């Protein structure tokens, strides 16, 4: 199903796009199984419509928005972003959506709001992976409010000019290209504004391995593997060397958000 959007030239990365097939059959979405081939096979049970997001917490205008209202909230843009997985591989994907800041402005955070929490659907009938206790369900992710307001943070409804396939987080997800992929919560049903830093799924599971920030950083290794390089899916085959990973995945604009912070400590 097509999803029309004009390319935003400010965010149209000039790199070879990952094939649609690779981007939709090689996914980490534990709600549909832990193997990367699982989501494409099992996510058919997800019903992306009707859908709504409830927005609550430290805001002046709590509301529940259905998918059509969300789609109409701001003009849809196509943006081509790098996606860097914490496992050491990367893709280049054309997403369709608009800056998350547009939604945040609409609900008017109050002076207590310092963080934003994203909560993924938790429905055993639609998500077979929830039966295994690999993570604490529902999947929860979070950002500092200023990170969420950064124009790069994309509220996303589609990819490759079409609505999101279920296995990629239909019908609505976020995309944060300067952070490891798991920070970008999928199939979001609730957005909550909070005073305290939210607990996040992977941080709960293994706090020494996955920090709250999880910015792409070649100098801070995962305890089990190096983050200095990555393999671009579809390009870096068997006989090519891995490429160097860039600080903030190459999105140096965001550096100002972390001025003065020790990123080895706040990894």
């Amino acid at each position, binding site marked *: 199903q097509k999803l029309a959007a004009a390319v935003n030239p400010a965010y149209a990365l000039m790199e070879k796009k990952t094939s649609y097939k*690779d981007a939709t*059959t*090689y996914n980490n979405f534990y709600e549909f199984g*832990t193997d*990367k*081939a699982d989501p494409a096979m099992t996510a058919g049970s997800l019903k992306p419509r009707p859908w709504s997001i409830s927005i609550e917490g430290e805001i002046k205008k709590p509301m529940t928005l259905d998918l059509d209202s969300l789609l109409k909230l701001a003009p849809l843009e196509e943006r081509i972003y790098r996606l860097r997985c914490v*496992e050491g*591989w990367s893709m280049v994907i054309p997403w369709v959506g608009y800056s998350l800041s547009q939604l945040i402005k609409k609900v008017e955070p109050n002076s207590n709001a310092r963080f934003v929490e994203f909560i993924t659907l938790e429905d055993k009938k639609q998500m077979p992976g929830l039966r*295994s206790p*690999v*993570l604490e369900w529902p999947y929860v992710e979070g950002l500092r409010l200023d990170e969420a307001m950064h124009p790069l943070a994309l509220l996303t409804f589609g990819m490759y000019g079409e609505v999101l396939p279920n296995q990629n987080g239909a019908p609505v997800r976020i995309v944060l290209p300067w952070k490891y992929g798991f920070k970008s919560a999928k199939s979001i049903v609730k957005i909550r504004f909070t005073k305290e830093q939210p607990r996040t799924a992977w941080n709960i*599971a*293994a706090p020494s*391995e996955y920090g709250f920030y999880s910015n792409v950083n070649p100098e801070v*290794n*995962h*305890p*089990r*593997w*190096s983050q200095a390089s990555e*393999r671009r*899916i*579809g390009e870096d*085959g*068997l*006989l090519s*060397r*891995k490429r160097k990973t860039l600080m903030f995945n190459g999105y140096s604009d965001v550096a100002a958000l972390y001025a003065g912070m020790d990123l080895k400590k706040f990894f």
Partner: protein
Amino acid sequence: MNVTNQQLARIKWILFALALLPFLRLVAYTYLDKLGANPVEFITRNTGDWTLYFLCITLAMTPLRKLLQWHWIIRMRRMLGLYVFFYAFLHFMTFLWFDHFFEFEEMWTDVLKRPFITVGFSAFVLLIPLALTSSNGMIKRLGGKRWQLLHRLVYVIAPLAVLHYFWMKAGKHDFAQPLLFAVIVFSLLGIRVFWRWRAHLTHNAKAF
């Protein structure tokens, strides 16, 4: 079940061909471009899985002989053990070649700094002397007793291999498969301990 030498030779050939199939499949998949989005990951996991499968099968030979009274089955053990080494070698070469491009310094950093790789690498290194001494000539040269002692290293290698897999999967909190392997390997080792303990008891009883 009794088996003639001719039948035994035939079983051996069939087993040899079957055990080679996973490797042939990998080669075919590479040519047909069917290794998926991340070929290096596919080959790494596949060769690792087959190393563990063959390790379990090899460790099952002695208990099977005893339980089924199939004495001939033990004569498959050497070949199966060599297949453990074969798939472990492919697994290691994938890591050294496709992952690190023979950058030995970089590889060493990985081996030393990442416990799951340290453990996997140790298991592989310990397999080498077993593979090298698997011929009849080497058994003679070492003497049966010493040879057997050396080959008991597999009781160290198997738990290391399971730990390697467990730690690797722990990074993504996915324990189902490593636990299954742990149960199988520890049952296969446990049954040996149990038999030895029972033999010890009867031996003592006789002494009285």
